[in-house]
């Protein structure tokens, strides 16, 4: 293996990892606080991607269309998430997890078909924003500026998110609610608002991630159920509910996939699933999570 090959694999793994972190962090936070495993998170990501394509198509000649589209995608998916939580999910907090799982799966079915109905089944693609169009050489491998942007954006969001969770009063409440929601409610915090806010932020991240992937991968029906499995593996490895665990889980996933393809082209997908199973067997609460009740 040459240096340039290693560098190329490392960077591609890093790009994958940062995308996965963007998607999986919301999934993990919602599970940590609300104890709901949200299958529809992948659908939110897909809707974000379609929204971004839609807004870019509307604004086409305008400069900065991509950035407006990314923001619009995030915000519209956040609104969708808020509506879902307020109108429906709210009524299922007390019931068995089986019903919650099936509820989020019902959303997967409905949103998947709604997207097909609205945008058809063709592959849609979005150009890279002009600012990030070029690429540069690093250790003998070509790195597109867009990938560099994603690689830098991931840690930036991780640090901001981590600071919010550890320093702000909302973050303290969230961590407290993850620990014991009844007690937080009894102490006078508005747990209902907290949950809605959590779900909105998580949906925003999913929508944003969906928008940002459009220059790299085309937007197709079925991307929802594919990505949710990847995000699921990441949070299981890192620890469901652990924010930094999700970050490192995504890193491990990205690099395993990236270098696994070099070593065993046939078994790369298998390797990440096996990794997840081993983690679940040895530490069911993940590398950086903690056991719950």
């Amino acid at each position, binding site marked *: 293996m040459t240096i340039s090959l290693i560098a190329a694999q490392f960077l591609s793994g890093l790009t994958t990892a940062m995308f996965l972190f963007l998607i999986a962090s919301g999934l993990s936070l919602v599970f940590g606080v609300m104890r709901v495993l949200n299958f529809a998170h992948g659908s939110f990501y897909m809707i974000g991607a379609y929204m971004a394509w839609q807004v870019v198509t509307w604004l086409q000649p305008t400069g900065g269309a991509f950035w407006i589209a990314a923001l619009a995608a995030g915000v519209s998916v956040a609104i969708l998430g808020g509506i879902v939580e307020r109108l429906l999910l709210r009524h299922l907090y007390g019931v068995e997890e089986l019903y919650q799982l099936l509820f989020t799966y019902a959303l997967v079915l409905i949103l998947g078909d709604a997207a097909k109905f609205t945008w058809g089944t063709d592959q849609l693609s979005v150009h890279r924003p002009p600012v990030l169009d070029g690429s540069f050489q690093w250790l003998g491998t070509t790195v597109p500026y867009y990938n560099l942007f994603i690689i830098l954006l991931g840690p930036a969001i991780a640090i901001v998110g981590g600071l919010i969770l550890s320093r702000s009063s909302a973050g303290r409440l969230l961590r407290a609610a993850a620990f014991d929601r009844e007690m937080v409610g009894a102490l006078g915090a508005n747990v209902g608002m907290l949950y809605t806010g959590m779900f909105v932020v998580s949906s925003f991240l999913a929508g944003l991630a969906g928008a940002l992937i459009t220059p790299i991968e085309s937007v197709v029906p079925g991307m929802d159920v594919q990505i949710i499995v990847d995000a699921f593996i990441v949070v299981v490895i890192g620890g469901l509910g652990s924010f930094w665990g999700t970050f490192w889980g995504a890193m491990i996933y990205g690099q395993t996939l990236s270098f696994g393809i070099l070593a065993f082209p046939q078994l790369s997908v298998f390797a990440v699933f096996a990794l997840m*199973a081993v983690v*679940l067997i040895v530490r069911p609460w993940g590398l950086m999570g903690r056991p719950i009740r």
Partner: protein
Amino acid sequence: MSLPLSRPMARTPGLTLRRVPWTLVVFLLLLPMPWIGSRYDTFLATQIIIDALFAVSLNLLLGTTGLVSFGHVAYFGIGAYICGILMKNYGISFVIAFPAAGLGAALFSLIFGFFCVRLTKIYFAMLTLAFSQIVWAVCFKWDAVTGGDQGIADVPFPDTHWMTAIPGLGDLTENSRFYLLTLMLAAVCIAAMAQITRSPFGRMLTAIRDNRERAAFIGLNVRAYELTVFVVAGGFAGFSGALYGIFTRGVFPDYVFWTQSAQVMIMTILGGMDFFWGPPVGALVLDWLNQEITNYTQYWPFVLGSILLVLLFALPGGVLGGLTRAYREVRRRRSRTALRDA
């Protein structure tokens, strides 16, 4: 102590209904299908019977033991692949391939289940899902054995020519003979599972479902019971998968994708997981609706999602749960009127 059981299994109204040998009744009712129904009816009935068998096997875990397995499709798929590979690639007879499919699926559920039963609740659901996705990844990638994303096409029908020797069956088509074979095998499997549910072993499983700690406290080896039922359910899922692979004339990685686990779970809940006959009712309703609705629109998943929402919010007990509640309501009103009149 009059602690009510959270979800009593046998809510069937009255003892008389419970004494009816339902498997035999349903079997006899479905037997004349190739003669009275169209070719299409027989086709649909075959699918419903296979799905019903699969859903009943899931309900051994879900309704009887309270284990939320989100990866039950793995054992269905393993059964389908074993039977398909043996019959297509090695030309082995169905008589051997079918039991091999069930045993193979049971063996895999023993290996996976060994780890799964160590976890509870949501973690159990996740590990079963993880294992089923591993099975999917292997089926999808292992070209040499599973045919990769192409799957295994043209799985042959089992040899059913012996049926033509039976008077009255001589003029049946191969599809109709496969229907009869499916019906017989499924009836035997379902009768076996009904027997298991009614047995002391089955009662213990329900005790575990209602209160795990209490069951452990009175001396039950909870994990051993859970593993046993996991293996049994996996084996029967393997049988249904073997039949399904032949029915659709092929086995593909899509059969093992995680969304399929959700489908069979919807069937089980739709019929009513508190009832042994809930899952077959769910399979009947869902497969029939699927055929009817796909005639009008390609957006079947949308309809399915909407059905699921209605089910979760308005009818959590499923079809049979709703019927039982309605029946009770009627009876209560009638007895009240009788009291007033007296």
